[in-house]
């Protein structure tokens, strides 16, 4: 069974600890530019949402990569992986990603995308608000269904 990273924008408070955790995992220091996850905030409305690589099954970044550096992981991994040694820095993957979640880091001059910290994503581990969850893909929407289900349950119990 594969895993996926679920995002709950309703729980995000915009603290950006996910970015710090990611950058720290990558470099042992704090540089949000190195982070593979990015939190967007609308200050007037006080709304925030974290965005990151969706590990697509049919990934534009893989399709356009001329060297095979960006490739699908072994069967069962559900990941899109990057082989830095084969990367020529052409940035076609950056252009192709519809989510803006493949980045060219101008400080390191390397392509950067989420590798799920080899199956133990630090952004999830350190999010203080449960806005990120690393779940089995068969159960990906269970938590969200439960929230909606509980609302319906309350309504029906009230009617009864």
């Amino acid at each position: 069974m594969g895993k996926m990273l679920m995002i709950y924008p309703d729980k995000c408070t915009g603290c950006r600890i996910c970015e710090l955790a990611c950058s720290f995992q990558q470099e042992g220091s704090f540089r949000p530019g190195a982070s593979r996850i990015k939190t967007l905030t609308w200050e007037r409305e006080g709304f925030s949402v974290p965005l990151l690589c969706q590990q697509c099954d049919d990934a534009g970044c893989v399709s356009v990569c001329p060297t095979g550096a960006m490739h699908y992981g072994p069967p069962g991994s559900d990941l899109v992986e990057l082989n830095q040694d084969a990367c020529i820095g052409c940035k076609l993957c950056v252009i192709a990603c519809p989510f803006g979640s493949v980045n060219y880091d101008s400080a390191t001059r390397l392509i950067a995308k989420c590798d799920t910290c080899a199956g133990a994503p630090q952004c999830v581990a350190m999010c203080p608000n449960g806005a990120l969850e690393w779940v089995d893909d068969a159960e990906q929407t269970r938590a969200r269904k439960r929230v909606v289900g509980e609302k319906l349950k309350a309504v029906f119990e009230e009617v009864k």
Partner: protein
Amino acid sequence: MYGWTGTILRVDLTHGTVRRERTDRELAHDYIGARGMGGRIIADEVDPQADPLGPENKMVFAPGPFTGTFAPSGGRYNVITKSPLNNTIAASNSGGTFGPELKYAGYDAVIVEGRSRTPVYLWIRDDEVVIRDASAFWGMNVHDAVDAMRAETDEDAKVACIGPAGENLSLIASVMNEMHRAAGRTGVGAVMGSKKLKAIVVVGTGPVTVADPDRFKSAVLSCTGKIKANPVGGAGLKAYGTNVLVNILNEVGALPTRNFQDGHFPNADKTGGESLAANQLVRPKGCYACVISCGRVTKTDNPLYPGMGEGPEYETAWGFGADSGVDNLDAIVKANYLCNEYGLDTISMSATIACAMELYERGYLTKEDTDGLDLVFGNAQAMVEAVRKTGTGEGFGKRLAEGSYRLAESVGHPELSMTTKKQEMPAYDPRGVQGIGLNYATGNRGGCHVRGYTISYEVLGQGPPMDPHATEGKAALDIAFQNLTAALDATGSCLFATFGIGGPELAEMLSALTGEEYSLEEFLRAGERIWNNERLWNLKVGYSAADDTLPKRLLEEPIKTGASRGEVNRLDEMLPEYYSLRGWDADGVPTQAKLEELAL
């Protein structure tokens, strides 16, 4: 250097020059950063007799070593300058994301000197630093100015700016960042206004480095766990914000009501955090790297007070609530929004209006003085209008903009200003909670709760059980809180982290981050050093032991109703012990031995 960036930026607005300096390693070690380092820089470089609104005053914008890391709730910065409200070393503290961005741009501090002749803003992108024309933004409120300057620079830029109140040199003007966060107190916004500096706009892309990454991470995880496990730091503040305190303080009988004429407000519940959560709250909000999320994104649909924004904090809800006799939470929220837009300190603004209400009810101010506003306690609409007038600086607003002390003094009744050292005291009645009274009286920037938050032990049960009405042990308690808080502020941490962690945890994170070993003792000594540095400054600007006091009302007029009925503050039972435990003489002057011990 680790934790620190090693660079300080110095900007001279008179000559339009910018230069970089190395962060002094010894200064960083001894004063840590933010409030500590900034306070030392002001004491060294500004003449205590300087006009705070003249070109000879300086401003320091300083994050701390934690700022920009994932130290829990450790993303703050301070604005340090000579206060135009009361001449003290103003060190106003704010969260948001501005502080971390300064660190990523590479700076432990930005020192602003001199005065520009025309409105300018400072645009920092890493090493590229430019003083730019701000004529087009002068006069804009905070929200619009932030949008406009981002359009001219970078849409993700972080902005610390003033609103019209700072431009008009209001002595209670704040510096705002990311629209809703405030370096609120002691009139720091007016200093920025006097320098014709509308904003500092920053984009940073560099790193904050760590001496021992594994040790730092493990310290951070342990601290985060402790804060999350604390009932206040974990669930309480996120669910109800700081405004959860309204009902708690009202029950203790220490919710100052109608300009401190009483300590109990019968309608308090309508203005508290529970009511806010049920009616105006949209969602909780966190500052940078915050694990607590006490911030409130709120909204009001009330046609009289429409708006969306952030707040109120407890002290704001108290000032525009109980202290003004107002129980309409929509009006309180609206007054908060206006303060954020005009760039006003919500505590001093609301307490000044409360003072004006008492002056008006006693006939010392007339309707003619107030431009026709019927400024009686409980008049929510008049209160909101008074905030607007102060923000724009029109009519009666000009007098409110100077704070309650000058207003009350101008009509011959300074005793009705609820201030110490001319700064308004916040939401904890010193008659109902003795230790906080001692803290207000000895506070180095005047009336302020976050210099020594003894409430944590006296009311919130965070330490050994303590009777808020007793004076025994309060001097020692106060000193412990004041020293710890000074050191904590200097790291860039939020005071609320202490709902879960204390000195040992902070010292461990600081050591792992910077690679300089701070024992607990050394960490607390840095706090004591910071406190004494601020004290020495106050003595130089002319304060003396006579100023370590409270308004006569709090020493002589007992609370009338509620759980603290009959109480006054018994400062004289605590102050001599405070001086003695501090190692100060009977006149409140640090002894030579103490100064030597602290290397001052």
